[in-house]
C-alpha cells in the first residue's frame, strides 16, 4: 500500500456502557456492527467504509476529529481481527512490542471522549 493510504475508515454507531472503564485504562476496543451484545457493552461499535487493513508501526489512528495517535507495535493477529471483525484493541501504553497478539500499542496519551457519529481512521505513514 502506498504512503498516506487509508487502511481503515469508519463511523461510530454506538458506545458501550462499560467503554469508559477501558478508556480510563488507555484502551479503546473497536468492533464492527453485528458484534454480540455482551461484547458491545464495552466496545466502540462502528460501521466501516474502508477495511483494507495492513496495520504497521508508524501508522496514525485518528480518534474523532482532534486526537491522532501513532502506532508503535502491532500484534500478530491484530490486522486479521481488524479486517475480519472490525475489531481492534488500541492501547496507549507507549510499548514498542505487543505483549498480546491482539494488541495495537500506541504512544501514550489520553483517550478522547468518543461520540456516536465520530470517525475513526487509520492512515499509513507517508
Amino acid at each position: 500500500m502506498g504512503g498516506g493510504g487509508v487502511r481503515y475508515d469508519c463511523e461510530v454507531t454506538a458506545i458501550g456502557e462499560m467503554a469508559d472503564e477501558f478508556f480510563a485504562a488507555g484502551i479503546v476496543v473497536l468492533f464492527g456492527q453485528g458484534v454480540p451484545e455482551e461484547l458491545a457493552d464495552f466496545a466502540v461499535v462502528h460501521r466501516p467504509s474502508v477495511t483494507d487493513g495492513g496495520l504497521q508501526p508508524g501508522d496514525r489512528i485518528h480518534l474523532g476529529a482532534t486526537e491522532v495517535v501513532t502506532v508503535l507495535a502491532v500484534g500478530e493477529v491484530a490486522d486479521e481481527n481488524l479486517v475480519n471483525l472490525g475489531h481492534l484493541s488500541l492501547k496507549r501504553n507507549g510499548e514498542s512490542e505487543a505483549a498480546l497478539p491482539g494488541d495495537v500499542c500506541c504512544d501514550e496519551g489520553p483517550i478522547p471522549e468518543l461520540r456516536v457519529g465520530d470517525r475513526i481512521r487509520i492512515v499509513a505513514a507517508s
Partner: protein
Amino acid sequence: MSEYKSVQISAGSGGWGGPLTVTPTDDKPIIACITGGGIHPVAQRIADLTGGEAFDAFKSTVKFDRMACAVIDCGGTARVGVYPMKGVPTIDVHPTSPAGPLAMHIKETIFVSGVKPDNVEEA
C-alpha cells in the same frame, strides 16, 4: 431429552489454564463460536464430540446463558475476559494469558487457551 457427552479441553502449546470439562445440557446446548468467519474447527470438534450445537455468534444472537462454552480467537483484551465474567467456560484458540481490564475474571477453572482440535478429547 437429548443425550450429551462430555469433553475435556486442555491448553495447547504456549497456552494457559484448564483443563476444562464441557458438557452441554438442554438449557445450555450451544457451542458458541465468537471468532468471525464461520465455525472454527475447535468449536466444530467440541460440537461433534458432545452433541452440542455449534453456533456462529457473529451471524445471529445467542444469549450467554444458553452457552455450554464459548470458543474465541481473542488476542488478549476483550473477548478473553467477557465470557469468563459471564460464567461461560471459555476456550481461546490463541495462546493468551490473563491480562487487560478484565483479567481478574480469567481463572484456570473457566478459561483455557492455545487450544487446537487435538486438545479436545472425549472425557
